[in-house]
């Protein structure tokens, strides 16, 4: 195993994920991002919820907290608020983050606490065998949408932006190098950062949607993705069904822990 993985992964591989699963590609991109960020592993915590993607914390050689379905963000909020010096990453899946954890997600965006959330969006509940999630595209099939989903999907990045996240980016597992860059940029941005990662689930999503081979899903992502620069030159009709990649939103707003520290300084200094 190469030195990068030796440094950031625990010695408990192979992982549990199926052949061709995008989670491993995200984990690999994360290791490269950690290398670039140079964070002290002892001062870095990774928090996850429940689902395939959430098992990532079990393999990372960091302080790792594998929590309950949808609840990674509240736990992470407790870690970060109580220990603002800690670097905090949150790994979530699409169902985990956008369905059961949706309320926590919008409020974490609103608070703008300096943490980096990586949402691995494979458009499906993988661990329970392929049910549609709020991020499953309209019309796609799942075990609970055998005739195609009639549920409209969230645009998670727009949701995050609307809720107040200060850094919103979208990447994917095909553009793996860019994914590392996005994680690095998100982590360096002071405030709540979302990186939505379009990912592959050949077994529970691809199989139901005529893309059972990992490479078919990879190519599907490649063909459907347009960069921010290219998207700017496209008409709404041309953009229909396309996924825009890159840093979609970045502003410098008030960061929660800093604001709380300011409050502590004020009150302890005798203010009101």
């Amino acid at each position, binding site marked *: 195993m190469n030195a990068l993985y030796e440094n950031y992964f625990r010695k408990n*591989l192979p992982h549990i994920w199926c*052949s061709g699963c995008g989670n491993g590609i995200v984990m690999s991109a994360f290791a490269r991002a950690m290398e670039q960020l140079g964070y002290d592993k002892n001062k870095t915590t990774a928090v996850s919820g429940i689902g395939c993607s959430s098992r990532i914390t079990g393999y990372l050689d960091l302080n790792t907290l594998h929590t309950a379905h949808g609840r990674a963000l509240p736990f992470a909020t407790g870690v970060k608020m109580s220990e603002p010096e800690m670097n905090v990453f949150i790994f979530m899946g699409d169902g985990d983050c956008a369905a059961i954890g949706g309320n926590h997600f919008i409020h974490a965006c609103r608070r703008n606490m300096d943490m980096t959330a990586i949402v691995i969006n494979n458009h499906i509940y993988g661990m329970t065998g392929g049910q549609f999630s709020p991020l499953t595209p309209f019309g796609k099939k799942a075990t609970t949408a055998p005739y195609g989903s009639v549920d409209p999907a969230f645009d998670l990045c727009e949701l995050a932006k609307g809720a107040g996240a200060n850094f919103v980016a979208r990447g994917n597992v095909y553009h793996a190098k860019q994914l590392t860059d996005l994680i690095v940029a998100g982590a360096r941005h002071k405030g709540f950062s979302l990186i939505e990662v379009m990912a592959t689930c*050949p077994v529970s999503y691809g199989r139901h949607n005529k893309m059972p081979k*990992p*490479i078919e899903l990879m190519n599907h992502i490649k063909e459907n993705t347009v960069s921010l620069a290219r998207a700017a030159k496209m008409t709404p009709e041309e953009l229909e069904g396309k996924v825009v990649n890159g840093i979609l939103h970045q502003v410098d707003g008030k960061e929660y822990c800093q604001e709380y520290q300011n409050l502590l300084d004020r009150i302890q200094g005798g203010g009101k």
Partner: protein
Amino acid sequence: MLAKKQGHVTVVEKLCKACGICIALCPAQVFVAAPDGRARVADQEKCTACRICEMHCPDFCVEVEEIDNE
């Protein structure tokens, strides 16, 4: 003129889950599929150390080492 980059690829067989991603994405066709579907290095010489395989392997089993050609 810069020397063309060259790499040395290894596949850690026990970690490979035969997804075929490296085989399909390698721009230089370094890999072939073994009968069990796992990736096998067929043409080491063609590797340009671009690391696309390494970055896309979901199982961390493809490693690329850049060869110093000085």
